[in-house]
């Protein structure tokens, strides 16, 4: 009975805090993305012919984000029935946008005008326990070549 109460409490805590943290994170992402909207990030590796590149440098941005207790529970249930695991979808979206934004922020801080060869990769530093033990999270690295361009 006690254990059930603890689980119910943790689920409720995860639900409320996870929801609000996610909400504020999305708001924050939208705001920062607007600020860096004009910094061009390309996944192609060739420099457009009319750019005069003055400087090039490797830049990175990374983030580790964790699921909350409620979402991990919901994902576990979902795995019984199949279909879209929504809780992981939003987690990946947040991690990807955050990593890309940090890359852009690093580029802006170095005075770069554009990024080429942008790659997004997930890393596995944290052990992902399917049973809810360990640290179930998503780690994303965004990297690319920042360019100072004279137009």
């Amino acid at each position, binding site marked *: 009975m006690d254990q059930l109460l603890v689980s119910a409490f943790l689920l409720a805590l995860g639900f409320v*805090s996870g929801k609000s943290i996610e909400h504020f994170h999305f708001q924050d992402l939208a705001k920062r993305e607007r600020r860096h909207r004009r910094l061009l990030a390309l996944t192609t590796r060739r*420099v457009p012919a009319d750019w005069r590149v003055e400087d090039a440098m490797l830049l990175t941005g990374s983030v580790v984000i964790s*699921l*909350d207790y409620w979402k991990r529970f919901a994902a576990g249930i979902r795995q019984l029935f199949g279909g879209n695991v929504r809780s992981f979808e939003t987690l990946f979206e947040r991690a990807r946008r955050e990593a890309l934004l940090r890359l852009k922020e690093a580029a802006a801080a170095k005075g770069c005008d554009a990024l*080429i060869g942008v790659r997004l990769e997930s890393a*596995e530093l944290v052990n992902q326990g399917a049973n809810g033990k360990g640290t*179930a999270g998503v*780690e994303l690295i965004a990297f690319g070549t920042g360019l100072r361009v004279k137009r």
Partner: protein
Amino acid sequence: MILTNTEEVPGRAIREFYGVVSGSTVRAKHFGKDFLAGLKNLVGGELKGYTELLNEARQEATSRMVEEARGLGANAVVNVRFATTSVTQGAAEIFAYGTAVRVD
């Protein structure tokens, strides 16, 4: 030392290739950080301690790669890639590799 993850350094010609250079580091999780991450796992959100760990590890791997390139007489590393491997439960290897070259 110029680093890029493209085939060449934009705006500069490659004069000489020195081959693959790499650098790696194996990081173990910090017990205190892991405990905090465990708490964070309940409420969700960014695990800042791990983000830092990942950044430090990547910088370490990159600087080892740069050292190797410098030893060969290169002044740039092109086509840099990052890879991670979980070694055991508590540790991970971060690996950086690229091609050492000399550019103008």
